[in-house]
């Protein structure tokens, strides 16, 4: 059982790799060439490795956001929009922080990110708690709205003074997170991400609030029966989830891009679902799975140069890994029989009702 926790994701990745090889053959590319280029691009040099960590960073933040929400069975598909909301607010604030010292400017940036993300997540939470609006749909819709607001902002009010390109003015030097490992873009925010992962772990598994959240995830009705304030917990959890993603957005602006671009997120919020699921919604494991998916993203660039296969292949891998992992995890393999047998043949009256916990 314990071994399965690690073995299953690894087996899922290997099976996904085999399926990917088939897709590559269909495309007329060499699977081994592609895998080699992926590996070289992700871990081949020190610089490549640090860039893998840089690519992993937003995935840690969004992965934590997804894990916190999913632990409560709140299906936050909106980490992307929440990250963009946080980044937009931080990117709007950044240029105004001239002459601010680091010690004030950076916390201000991060606070802006938290505020933006928490608002975006909180709206979905409030809609779910008070208006009974399915959070899956509301968070997806909020993704589209956030992306368009960011686009409108960098074409309009936040556009750089020269108005040459759709990007915002650079943030003040004080608001920039230092790069101590130049020329690599690795920075201290990775430490923040790891610390947050530890914090989320402690919150989920060592606090009463975390217990209530997980109870909510297991059984909403029973949680209500035991006096857990469902509505408040729903709003608060999605706001917290959004805050984590928004913080990731602010970090991205503060440490990496130093300004806002229309295409800030390549879909980290969606990728984070794979990150969180492969990690079994365990915050500590998310650091590792984020690095794995960050390596894929980073290696994909090299793969395109070497083999001419588009980096969107990574999405095929993500989708397959999630599906295979789901299939490996299910306790309902008996359901397969009915595919082939036409009508179900399992005797219905054999199992006591108490055993029904799947």
């Amino acid at each position, binding site marked *: 059982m314990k071994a399965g926790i690690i073995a299953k994701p690894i087996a899922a990745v290997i099976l996904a790799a085999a399926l990917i090889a088939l*897709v590559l053959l269909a*495309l*007329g590319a060499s699977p081994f060439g592609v895998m080699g280029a992926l590996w070289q691009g992700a871990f081949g040099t020190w610089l490549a490795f640090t860039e893998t960590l840089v690519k992993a960073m937003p995935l840690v933040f969004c992965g934590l956001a997804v894990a916190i929400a999913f632990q409560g069975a709140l299906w936050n*598909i909106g980490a992307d929009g929440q990250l963009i909301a946080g980044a937009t607010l931080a990117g709007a604030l950044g240029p105004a922080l001239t002459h601010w010292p680091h010690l004030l400017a950076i916390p201000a940036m991060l606070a802006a990110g938290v505020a933006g993300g928490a608002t975006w997540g909180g709206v979905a939470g409030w*809609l779910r708690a008070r*208006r*009974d*609006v*399915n959070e*899956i*749909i*509301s968070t*997806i*819709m*909020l993704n*589209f*709205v956030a992306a*368009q*607001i960011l*686009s*409108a902002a960098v*074409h*309009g009010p936040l556009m750089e003074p020269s108005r040459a390109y759709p990007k915002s003015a650079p943030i003040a030097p004080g608001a920039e997170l230092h790069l101590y490992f130049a020329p690599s873009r690795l920075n201290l925010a990775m430490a923040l991400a790891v610390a947050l992962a530890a914090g989320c772990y402690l919150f989920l598994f060592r606090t009463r609030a975390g217990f209530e959240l997980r109870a909510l995830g297991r059984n909403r009705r029973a949680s209500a029966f035991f006096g857990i304030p469902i509505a408040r917990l729903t709003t608060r959890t999605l706001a917290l989830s959004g805050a984590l993603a928004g913080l990731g957005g602010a970090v991205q602006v503060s440490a990496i891009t130093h300004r806002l671009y229309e295409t800030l997120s390549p879909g980290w919020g*969606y*990728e984070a*679902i*794979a990150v969180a*699921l492969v990690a079994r919604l365990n915050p500590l494991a998310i650091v590792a799975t984020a690095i794995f998916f960050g390596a894929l993203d980073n290696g994909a660039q090299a793969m395109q140069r070497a083999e*001419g296969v*588009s980096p*969107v*292949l*990574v*999405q*095929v*891998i*993500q*989708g*397959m890994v*999630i*599906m295979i992992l*789901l*299939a490996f995890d*299910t*306790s*309902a393999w*008996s*359901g*397969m029989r*009915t*595919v082939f047998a*036409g*009508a*179900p043949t*399992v005797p*219905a009256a*054999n*199992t006591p009702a108490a055993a*029904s916990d*799947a």
Partner: protein
Amino acid sequence: MLEAFLTSTIAMATPILLAALGETIVEYSGVINIGIEGSMLCGAFFGLAAAYFSGSLALGMIAAVAAAIALNALLALLVVNLAVSQVVAGTALDILALGLTGVFYRRLFGITGKAFTVAPIRPIALGPLAHIPVVGPALFDQNVIVYAAFALVPCIAGVLSRSRYGLELRAAGERPEAADALGLNVYRIRWQALLIAGALTGLAGGYLTMAYADTFVEGISAGRGFVALAVVIVGRWNAYGVAAASVLFGSAMALQFALQASGTAIPYQLFLALPYALTLAVLAIFGGQANAPSALGEPYVRR
């Protein structure tokens, strides 16, 4: 101006309506299909690709339907037989579809820069009806898929509320255990529903590339599948309600073109956000899930 707006409204409503009708059937059976966006996208790409290489729009539409059915079959295997989380499996399907269509699109058309386009399905004017002022072109000068989509509304409404099949669907979605006890095969009912929905979603995707846009761009479905999910809620799981909601969202999408063309100072991105913001607003007002099938989203495992 108004005539063009109405015509555009119906044209924009059609893919949403087709997908939402399929989703209504699926949700009746107790499954929520978040992968609908991915099915639509695959239908759009593989349909156009088939039409492009074969030169036949009919083959293209068949390929679009087949691609979406294949994706829904994969989903059915996961959520019906293996009883995995419907939300997560559906999301995985969306990501997979985005990747698959992107990889094949760039491989086939990205490098050569060849125009990936076909002569679109042509509108058929229904005689003098098409010349009725204001509403004529919108209602009676559209292509065959538009007519089919709206003709399906009363058919599906009738089947869902009056036929034995509708009753079985409802049983599987409301009380799967009870349905099973009555000798119904819940697995088979949910499989069938997903395959039917796949066909409708494939039509929606094929419509996007072969009737509406005449070409493919990555992510061309642009959230229409997700909007269809919202449309089912707003339409209260009723085919007529779904049709009305589809037209409402179609008008929001058409409005964005009308407003862009009018040259206002408001940034066009805010118009692009309009259908999604409208979805949120409408759900906030009518959002309650009280009419939803009781077992919606819950995996059923036969004991």
